């Protein structure tokens, strides 16, 4: 039983990170119909940005803040203006293909331009173990989970409780009506991209100590975030977190109890079932087919 709990908790921590990445993914989808296949790389790049700032002697907190600023500009504004805006009118697939190309470019640009090797990344939390009723939990697992949860709820609160957030929701639901009501649609969409960038940097901060900073660290993370977003519900922000937690926990349990080789299959099976029987996700709302 203690083993189960242990796996459960460490799975929750990993899952919370997936949830962060999935949340940004979902936001982008809602705000602009963008399916960002480069989401994993959006986490990878800030990891290296932070490493760069750290190597200049900046403390971790400062590096984080600086990276957030850079990420909002590059992964938020430049990405939106450079890629999403021109392709918006052509429909979904060109954006998908462009983001695929972008992920290949980002991954290999870093590999060629900086380093092909893995780099260590300082952990936010010191190495401490807690033993509660026979279950060993690490401080970093607890801290990661708490931080990720806080961010998700903060984002959720922002979207539902502030005026700007509500305006973003309006844009997501019906762009034309929103602009008729005087909402600055492009700016609202930009905010979605900006939030995605911030969440990505946070995810990087939390996940890189374990994953190690490497040009391909984004690949598996991007996939998991994608699955998590679908499972939770593509058009619901809380769903992203739920999806992430489900994926994180199930993976861990599957690796220990079923077979390490098929651990990816668990998330996959859930994903497939959700897709085929409840495509809007566990918490999502059914999207009407527009004629």
């Amino acid at each position, binding site marked *: 039983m203690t083993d189960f709990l242990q796996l459960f908790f460490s799975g929750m921590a990993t899952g919370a990170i997936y949830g962060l990445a999935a949340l940004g993914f979902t936001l982008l989808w809602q705000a602009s119909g963008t399916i960002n296949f480069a989401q994993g790389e959006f986490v990878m790049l800030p990891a290296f940005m932070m490493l760069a700032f750290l190597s200049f002697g900046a403390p971790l907190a400062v590096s984080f803040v600086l990276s957030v600023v850079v990420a909002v500009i590059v992964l938020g504004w430049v990405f939106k203006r450079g890629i999403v805006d021109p392709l918006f009118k052509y429909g979904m697939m060109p954006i998908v293909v462009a983001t695929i190309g972008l992920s290949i470019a980002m991954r290999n640009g870093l590999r060629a331009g900086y380093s092909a090797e893995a780099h260590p990344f300082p952990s936010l939390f010191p190495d401490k*173990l807690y033993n509660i009723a026979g279950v060993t939990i690490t401080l970093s697992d607890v801290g990661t989970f708490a931080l990720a949860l806080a961010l998700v709820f903060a984002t959720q609160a922002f979207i539902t409780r502030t005026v700007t957030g509500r305006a973003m929701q309006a844009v997501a639901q019906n762009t034309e009506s929103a602009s008729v009501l005087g909402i600055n649609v492009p700016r609202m969409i930009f905010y979605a991209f900006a939030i995605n960038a911030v969440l990505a940097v946070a995810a990087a901060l939390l996940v890189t100590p*374990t994953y190690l900073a490497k040009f391909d660290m984004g690949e598996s993370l991007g996939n998991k975030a994608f699955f998590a977003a679908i499972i939770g519900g593509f058009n619901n922000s809380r769903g992203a977190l739920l999806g992430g937690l489900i994926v994180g926990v199930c993976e861990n349990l599957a690796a220990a109890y079923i077979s390490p080789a098929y651990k990816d299959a668990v998330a996959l099976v859930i994903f497939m079932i959700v897709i085929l029987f409840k495509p809007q996700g566990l918490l999502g709302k059914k999207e009407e087919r527009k004629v």
Partner: protein
Amino acid sequence: MQKRTTLKLIAACAVLATAGSALAQNTIKIANIVELSGGGATAGTNFKNGVELAVKEINASGGILGKKIETVTSDTQSNPGVAKGLTQKAVDDNVFAIFGPVFSGSIMVSMAESRKAEIPNFTGGEAASITMQGNPYIFRTSFTQATAMPKVARYISDQAKLKSIAIIYVNNDFGKGGLDMIKKALEKSTTKVVAEISTDAGQVDFSAAVLKAKQSNADGVFAYSNEEESARILRELRKQGWNKPVIGETTLTGQKVIELAGEAANGAVAHVGLTVDAPLPAIRAFRAKFEKEYKYISDHNGMKGYSGIYTLKAAIEKVGKLDRKAVAVAMHTLKVSTAKEPGILMDVQFDANGDLDRESFMVEVKNGKQEVVATLPPLGGAAVPVKK
């Protein structure tokens, strides 16, 4: 439609251009086919750097038989299929010898091509099966698992005196080969293998694997995976409070692994065929030269590449001419000592399978550094603690 024709013609021309080039008469062409990206990037890059350092030195002192060496490097992306294609390309280019790939999975596939073309192929791969294919053109630059594992097993049962051991291994040619060999070697010993935990190349999350090791109540763990994964295993072991012996092979205590695992690497013990920290003058010299050239400390793969080139030089000089077949034959009975050729780094002897035999070391990571705690002689003999 016109554009497409032009595109096609350009394609044909480009392919023609890249597909052929005549063997220059005054240089010895060597193809360096290594992993520069993907899971093997660390190993491949170090191997390449070792090769290039050796080539530079040899060219500076007049080359081999008066001819300079020319190397052409290409990236296998840690993909066996790509490695095979690149080997074919090297064959087309009529190179004298091929160095690489380093990864066992890749060399197992690409060596069919070098064998067909009868070109000597030096590899850094360690899987036992590499030299069991009856290929007369494959030569190692490191131990085969068939030689290394018995030494590790002896350490586990005789010196660490562990009653039981859990094995965490990576599910590929390299890891499985190692698993089979260590199991075989431990069969007749007092140590029991109580868990065999499979992990994947590129795996990031080892919490389940380490948990399984803990559940097995083994007296120690034998961790056998590639560099990055080893670092992650060490970190996870530390994270979950594992305080029993952690034993491994060369890949567990490499410089890069120590760098990536940080504190978590301290205390790990490994059997190492090649280490820059060995107290031998030839190796000390290599370490200094490598660090001067590349501004970082080499790992064992750098030594593989470096000594491999010098091995080839020794073989060519033994034969006296640039004949690939003759060189391959000469390799099978080659014996080189560091007195004659310091570049070989350690006295070495090759056998009919392309395997080599040398001294090796037991290394422990202390304070973020590799420290040699014992030197093991080639095949047989007891471990000798190192005199400082």
